[in-house]
């Protein structure tokens, strides 16, 4: 359901006002944080804490949107909404997919 991530550097840069310096900084921070984002999401899911799952998914949604990954951001939003309504039961696969997506994006960004 989620297509392969294609890095669209130009669209990201355009949003950052063509500022390569900010772009490089964002990429470096994303790469630094990606493992933490993945583990925070699984930990919250394992603990059955819907509120934290919602928040972590929200954060990931923002990160992926920053790198113009609409499909990834939509997948994160789906998890965020489900968690918001307290439905964690069927999220295991979606959470695994989202974590793979984060690593895919990280790889494309040069991690």
């Amino acid at each position, binding site marked *: 359901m989620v297509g392969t991530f294609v890095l669209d550097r130009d669209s990201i840069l355009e*949003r*950052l*006002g063509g*500022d390569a*310096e*900010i772009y490089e*900084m*964002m990429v470096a*921070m*994303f790469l630094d*944080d990606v493992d933490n984002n993945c583990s925070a999401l699984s930990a919250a899911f394992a603990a059955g804490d819907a509120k934290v799952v919602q*928040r972590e998914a*929200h*954060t990931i*949604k*923002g*990160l992926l*949107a*920053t790198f*113009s990954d609409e499909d990834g951001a939509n997948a994160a*939003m789906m998890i965020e909404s489900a968690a918001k309504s307290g439905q964690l039961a069927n999220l295991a696969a979606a959470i695994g997919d989202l974590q793979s997506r984060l690593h895919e994006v990280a790889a494309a960004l040069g991690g």
Partner: protein
Amino acid sequence: MHTVLIIDDSDINLTLIKALVLKLGECTPVLFDNPLAALEWCRTSEPDLVIVDYMMPEMDGLRFISAFRALHGRDEIPVLMITANDQKDVRYDALLGGANDFLTKPIDRIEFSARARNMLSLRTGQKFLADRAEHLAVLVNERTREIRDREKELIFRMSRAAEFRDPETGAHIQRMAHYSQIIARGLDLGPAMEQLVLEAAPMHDVGKIGIPDYILLKPGKLTPEEFEVMKGHARIGHELLKDSGSEILRAGAEVAISHHEKYDGSGYPFGLKGNQIPQLGRIVAVADVFDALTSERPYKRAWSLDDACRFLEEGRGKHFDPLCIEAFLAGWENILEIRQRFRDEDVPLI
């Protein structure tokens, strides 16, 4: 330089927004990843713009905004809230809850710069108006004080004009005005009344300006007819000063008409008794007589302080209001100091 407060629990967003704020120019970003710590900072510091994320663990953006707005003087500072573009309901709530505008994630630099600049120019306008209001208030106070000072100076010069035609001196005016103030203090009339007494007392004899020279400057004793004319200075002074828009001049009119009344009713021009005599007049009567007694004149030597005090004591309840005599004697140390400060030989004009 604008102080821009940025609150977001995600480091990457903080970094991005900080970088964008720095690109605006003339801005100092202050970063917090915790809204409670940011609120604490806001208690003592005043940002020019607040950029706050909606979704944060300890306190969401809506609650932050209402807590921030509740702080004293923080109700006008512009607030931009960052929301995901799928959070339309949150945006409505935030608008009603005090956010001025929104930024949607992912943050777009052009949109960010435009909205942030709008908010900062709003802030600049607010500060300009506040500074202007403050500046005007200071200016009005300054001008009012200048006018009041000039009013006082004119009164003093006018009082001196009358005294110049008289053997009395400028120092007499200063002494009797300050003695009057000491009596007002002893009567516990309050600082505003003390000041009014000090400023109005110099005008007590301003009516002498209307007394012919052959009477005013006559070396010997006045005939009963001449004395009647001389008494007219009380009414003339009142006539000159009455119905003024100035509180000081109105008080001066009261002093002029009543400073020769005596407590037992034997004074002039009306022969008022006791508390029928305006309090200003009762106060000034003591101060004026004491200074006249203790000053040297071409036709008399100065009385000793003891003799002058005895005269006041003997006049208690007859010539003078007993309470005014008590207040005068209670301030004796000050009376002596004033005598030293204003000597006949060196007359300070103002």
